[in-house]
């Protein structure tokens, strides 16, 4: 978000406390939502639970089009609509809730760097596997993405989305990668995260931050989602401290409901 937009959102947001009827929107859970959107949505849900902010999850087939930025998830709080984890963190900060206040500048910079790593590596890998791997695209992504629509609109929208993601992959240089290389990249990313986490409960010692929410969202979704190949989940399960990290967060913040796809 630009500085001016951030200032504007903060001003408006600060005016009111967090309401009881805040809602989070995502695509239909059973039939439509894909791995990448599910991971992003879970990250935001984890973050809000860590802040102690109540939010209701509503599934709508047109959630992607309702979102102001076109990305899932988005929250509807009072009169405002905010999408994606970054702006949502800013929004809650303006209302006086923050998880990273206790960090010093160096740590905050480190946190931002790791969050960028997750977005650039894990999220991109998820999108690649979903849309650039022909088997997954044909068996899982296209049928799920197009499930709420009728023929021929379902095919048109699914292919449109696939072309869009493939164009984006080409633009960032992932177009030529093979599935093996992507799995390697994911392993390296997890290696870095595992090293940073070490034996601590959370990335920054005792208290969770937005980085923990983001990492949990992606890793937990990957290990609990069935894809055409279980390779990706296996790579992550190789890091035992990351596995126990996921289990810990699930038990602490999600024990009242099940959150697997």
């Amino acid at each position, binding site marked *: 978000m630009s500085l001016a937009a951030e200032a504007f959102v903060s001003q408006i947001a600060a005016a009111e406390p967090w309401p009881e009827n805040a809602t989070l929107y995502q695509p239909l859970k059973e039939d439509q939502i894909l791995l990448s959107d599910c991971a992003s949505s879970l990250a935001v849900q984890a973050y809000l639970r860590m802040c102690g902010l109540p939010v209701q999850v509503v599934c*709508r*087939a047109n959630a992607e089009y309702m979102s102001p930025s076109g990305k899932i998830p988005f929250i509807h709080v009072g009169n405002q609509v905010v999408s994606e984890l970054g702006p949502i963190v800013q929004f809650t900060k303006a209302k006086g809730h923050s998880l990273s206040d206790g960090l010093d500048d160096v740590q905050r910079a480190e946190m931002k760097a790791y969050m960028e790593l997750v977005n650039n590596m894990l999220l991109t890998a998820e999108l690649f596997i979903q849309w650039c791997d022909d088997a997954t695209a044909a068996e899982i992504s296209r049928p799920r993405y197009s499930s709420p629509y009728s*023929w*021929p609109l379902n095919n048109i*929208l699914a292919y449109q989305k696939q072309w869009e993601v493939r164009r984006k992959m080409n633009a960032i240089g992932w177009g030529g990668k093979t599935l093996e290389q992507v799995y390697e990249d994911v392993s390296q990313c997890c290696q870095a995260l595992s090293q940073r986490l070490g034996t601590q409960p959370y990335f920054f010692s005792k208290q969770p931050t937005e980085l923990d929410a983001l990492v949990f969202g992606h890793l937990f979704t990957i290990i609990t989602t069935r894809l055409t190949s279980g390779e990706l989940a296996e790579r992550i399960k190789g890091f035992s401290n990351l596995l126990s990290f996921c289990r810990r967060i699930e038990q602490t913040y999600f024990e009242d409901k099940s959150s697997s796809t």
Partner: protein
Amino acid sequence: ALSELHFNMLHIDGLGRTKEDLLTYEIADVFRAKSLIDVMKKSHEARQKLLRLGIFRKVEVLIDTSRGEGALPNGLDVTFEVTELRRLTGSYNTMVGNNEGSMVLGLKLPNALGRAEKLTFQFSYGTKETSYGLSFFKPQPGNFEPFPSICTNQTLKWEGVWRELGCLARTPSFAIRKESGHTLKSSLSHAMVIDTRNSSILPRRGGLLRIHQELAGFTGGDVSFLKEDFEIQLNKSLFWDSVLSASLWSGLVLPIGDKPTSIADRFYLGGPTSIRGFSMYSVGPQSEGDYLGGEAYWAGGLHLYTPLPFRPAKGGFGDLFRTHFFLNAGNLCNLNYGEGPKAHLKKLAECVRWSYGLGVLLRLGNIARLELNYCIPMGVQSGDRICDGVQFGAGIRFL
């Protein structure tokens, strides 16, 4: 002798893909001709009917004495020489609708399957809306009892429309945001029009009855509804070259199944072409200033059209202008099922919006009209946006 000449044989030349049985209905009358004059008259009428089908570029009639095999003395042969339209035609038009303009590119297959079916694909880019449409149109060589066939017109149409709704403003109300996304409408519609007016823009006499129904969802698509709307207009010339005109519009859309109606299928009320004195589509249910439309509506208008005072430029340019005094009224509401039709009728009858005023009209050819009115809106409910005072309107269909 001339009086002994009678009809003998009929030929049709030039048929390519058109099926013969389509034409037999149109030219059936010619077979009943009894004399030369009758043959000429009925052939001429048949020629008009063939041209009206919209599948021939040219139709020529040749009447000659019988020759060749089986020729009778005093027999007449009638030959229709037809030139079919090309299989595929393209068009580029600009269109003026109700307060909006657009550019329309079209591709048409007239006579797609040989029985005057029209298949058209249209792309329209306008000031308010961008759309793509594919439509298939099959005329019925109907038997229109009890209505006289000169003035009725029935059409049966299948429409497939891919709609993408998006928010144009930066902060639309959430109710509008919830309607964003793609929908596919696949519907069958039937329209019956009886038009006895002498002109469609500023008629002096006659009436119009138009009944239209549309059923969506049974041939595919994401939306399911039954929509009915009707329009009636009556005109009567009075003394001093003035015309009294009354019109009534009404419509209803019933969703089928449990999904609510889409904002793209609902009715809207208000504006210079409907209830004058209110802003465009700014009457009825709304959320934070964005109007959501309604599932049932009615609107009525009463006009007195007179020539311009003192009749400047009479017989020429001045005849394109008229002044009018009007009274418009109407209401729009949603259907909250389970309450029964009586409750809905009651809702449509209470809190009626209405307006009155006067203005000047300019007729543009036989297609459109411009209006400049001074309006006084009344019965304004909270949430409606009014345009009291001077209001300008351009369009083809006015209340």
